[in-house]
């Protein structure tokens, strides 16, 4: 059973075994507006928790995507190069950014669960 966790930077992390898939939330894509460019990290790159490792550009601005937990990149979503709009249309589905192999599963405990994230978004007004 996959477990989904969330960060305060509005990323979701879906964990299956020791691999985490990372994307941005519905709230984040709404805030960004139309996504026109995505840059995903190269396979094999080792990223620290909180390290900027992907970029999402809307018409208005560029935003960094941070590694929610430490690990090694095992796949980037290559399809986003040609269809960056997937991030808007299906932020938690086809619009995923990258997969990483977890360095320390215990880091997941520091992230929010769905109820916690919903409360966090509500607190933003």
């Amino acid at each position, binding site marked *: 059973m996959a477990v989904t966790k969330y960060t305060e930077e509005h990323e979701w992390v879906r964990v299956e075994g020791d691999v985490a898939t990372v994307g941005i939330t519905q709230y984040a894509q709404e805030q960004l*507006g*139309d996504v*026109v*460019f995505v*840059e995903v990290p190269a396979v094999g790159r080792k990223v620290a928790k909180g390290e900027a490792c992907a*970029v999402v*550009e*809307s*018409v*208005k*601005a*560029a935003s960094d995507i941070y590694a929610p937990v430490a690990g090694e990149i095992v796949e980037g979503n290559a399809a986003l*190069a040609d269809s960056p709009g997937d991030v*808007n249309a299906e932020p938690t589905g086809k619009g995923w950014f990258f997969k990483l192999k977890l360095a320390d599963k215990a880091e997941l405990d520091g992230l929010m669960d769905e109820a916690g994230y919903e409360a966090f978004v509500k607190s933003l007004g």
Partner: protein
Amino acid sequence: MSDPAAGPLKRTPLYDLHRELGARLVPFAGYEMPVQYPTGILAEHTQTRTACGLFDVSHMGQVRLTAKAGHSAAKAMETLVPGDIVGLQPGQQRYTQFTNDQGGILDDLMVTSTGDHLLVVINAACKDADLAHMQKHLSSMCEVEPMFSRGLLALQGPQASAVLSRLAPQVATMKFMTGAYVVIDGARCYVTRSGYTGGDGYEISTPADQTDAIARKLLSNPEVKPIGLGARDSLRLEAGLCLYGHDIDTTTTPVEAVLLWSVGKERRVQGGFPGASVIQKQIAEGSTRKRVGLLPDGKAIAREGAEIAIGGKIVGTVTSGGFAPTLGRAIAMGYVERAQSANGTKVDLMVRGKPVPAEIVPMPFVKHAYYRG
């Protein structure tokens, strides 16, 4: 642009309408302005290129100049701008700039002659300074009358003429860069055939209390959708038009900005505007840098501030960059050393520390579609 310490944000006469339409409102030049509506910037951009968009630009400053006895408002204005204002026939409009003593640009503006007055439209972020500048230098020769509470609507796109003609048939035959008093929905408006999208369209100056009704009437046409500042920016960038504070400012001259077309031919020779000697020298000898269009390879977007390099050497800076929805690719403009400014020159745009290959290209990126009759 806006200073948060400057007090509460101002609202245009269309604030309630923006809220009703579900706009995302952001602070801009001291106003609470719609950056986009629920359909988003890409859809709004395409709407304006293919049908018709309505923009609230009431935050911009409108000023009326009226000559005092024995004076000419146009002659007075020419002491502050390099454009040919004296030569404006009644009903003609012109683009020009307020220059400083170094030839730098204090603001860019539109000037229209009504015959009895000059109507001036200035940028929102500059309007208080521009007004003070005009009052200081022109008051002995003309009445300088701010009309900052008036509404200003931009109706832009290939269907704009068909739409506005339903309310005011005479606008159909107006040519690009002309203006006229027009009654719309019972309100006396001043309409010019101009805009900031590179396409056909109008700007409509409205009495403050009738702005909302006129906007709703325009939006009731099936061809018209509301458009926010986000698409306004991508549209003007495709058209190669400068955004004050980004592509032009007090450190750039009209020559460097490749706006020499807007400097009157006689005025280039005769001068008589601030910074004339600097600008005349640049006309004669060339400026050291020049504004150019940039077309990056691939999809990465080089935004304002990105360095422009050739063979690892920095030769300039991007001043505006973004995604061009009409072209489906990234575009940019910036300044480069004049020696490196020829069309076809290969450069690198430094995006997040990595070089993105690009080529210097002519502007506009999307062909202008002005109505010239």
